[in-house]
């Protein structure tokens, strides 16, 4: 049995967000977009789902790192928005630990929302769609490395 790594709830010191907010935002925006597009290329996101996202503007903010990413979906691929509109169609905001817990499927987005650890603003139906689209992804099983077994 592979041992499950548990991500604790944490909040980084406020100074990190103050510094992080002043740094260029493109490196982690590009990383996020590369990750999303890899998911598209592996055909983990259904084509009909992507068509719903087409042309919509998204904003993801990691509150305690100061990281912000504006992006959109065009021709079935995610692309950065360097001069974003004032109000994105959909905005997700949370601390780093909450985003990590979501990605690792350790916590449920509704749980984080009830506990006010995840905020969703903008087009609520689009937000629900994105949430359900990500929930329906069957992530490939990671190879079981000997170092992580016990």
């Amino acid at each position, binding site marked *: 049995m592979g041992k499950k790594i548990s991500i604790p709830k944490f909040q980084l010191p406020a100074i990190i967000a103050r510094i992080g907010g002043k740094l260029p935002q493109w490196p982690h925006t590009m990383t996020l977009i590369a990750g999303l597009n890899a998911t598209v290329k592996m055909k983990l996101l259904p084509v009909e789902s992507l068509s719903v996202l087409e042309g919509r503007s998204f904003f993801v903010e990691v509150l305690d790192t100061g990281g912000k990413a504006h992006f959109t979906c065009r021709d079935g691929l995610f692309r950065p928005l360097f001069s974003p509109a004032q109000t994105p169609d959909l905005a997700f905001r949370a601390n780093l630990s909450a985003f990590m817990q979501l990605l690792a*499927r350790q916590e449920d987005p509704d749980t984080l929302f*009830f*506990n006010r650890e995840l905020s969703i*603003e903008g087009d609520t139906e689009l937000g*629900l769609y*994105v949430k*359900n689209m990500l929930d*329906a992804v069957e992530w490939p099983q990671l190879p079981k490395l000997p170092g992580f077994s016990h």
Partner: protein
Amino acid sequence: MSREKIPQLICPAGSLPALKAAIDNGADAVYLGYKNDTNARNFAGLNFDEKAMREGIRYAQSRGRHVLLAINTFAQPGRDADWQRAVDGAAEMGVDAVILADVGLLDYAARRHPDLRLHLSVQGSATSYEAVNFAQREFGVRRAVLPRVLTLAQVENVITNTSVEIEVFGFGSLCVMNEGRCWLSSYATGESPNTVGACSPAKYVKWEKTPGQMTTRLNGILIDRFDDNEAAGYPTLCKGRFEVGGETYYALEEPTSLNVLEILPDIARIGVAAIKIEGRQRSPTYVAQVTKNMRAALDALAREEGQYRVEAAWQSELSKVSEGSQVTLGAYSRPWR
């Protein structure tokens, strides 16, 4: 307590990963719906297309578990055929039962597919043994899901007076619980679970964040305001805070979740056939967390006759995923009666 008296565990699946999470964590059956308004969780991006449903049925049945397909909204005028096709599809794909609410559809299913097992949905709103026995006599219904309005003694009274299997809710978000008869969502938005398959549809919901506060509006109607450290709930009218008699409070209901762990031995003793977990709208993570803990509780009940005790770990895990982060026995316990 002998194994056969332990209620079955019926778990929600809004997606294939959620279905697999339920099966892998010990569900006896999963319930699911099509990606359309024939089911009461018709949410954007949720539910199963035909390919996912066939794979889900294969995954569950090959492991000896059951798949129940909810077709539990009411056929809308001029569109009977959509609901009938949903039932035909269920029979063709080989689900173990369909969960129906509409009497017209129950009649269709009973006549067209006499071998298809029929469950009466909670949306059918049968709260008495007379209603349950009517569904048995007219349509051959084999199981009824009771709305969350009955006390445990009332549930027992139904069970004593019917041969239909009885399923009750064991965990999940509570609404005003008048299932199948609630029109609050329609009052605010013109749409309700019975008509479009969703309560307070997302397209009418607006969350606005301002410094220190979050405001929730449903179709423009202000339903709640939260401070940053206050737990939030689903954006439904029944869970809003309203000014009544000069006081602003949860006038209809507090955001909360049902949790029957404490009375599980009583539920088994009175002969409940199955316990249902609410939450097809939740993620695979929630399904895994709740299924795992409910399974552990039911297994403990099967193992330790008279020794059953609620473990703190089950409660804390279930409380964490609860709406409003609090749990209640709901209508099951009415000490003042």
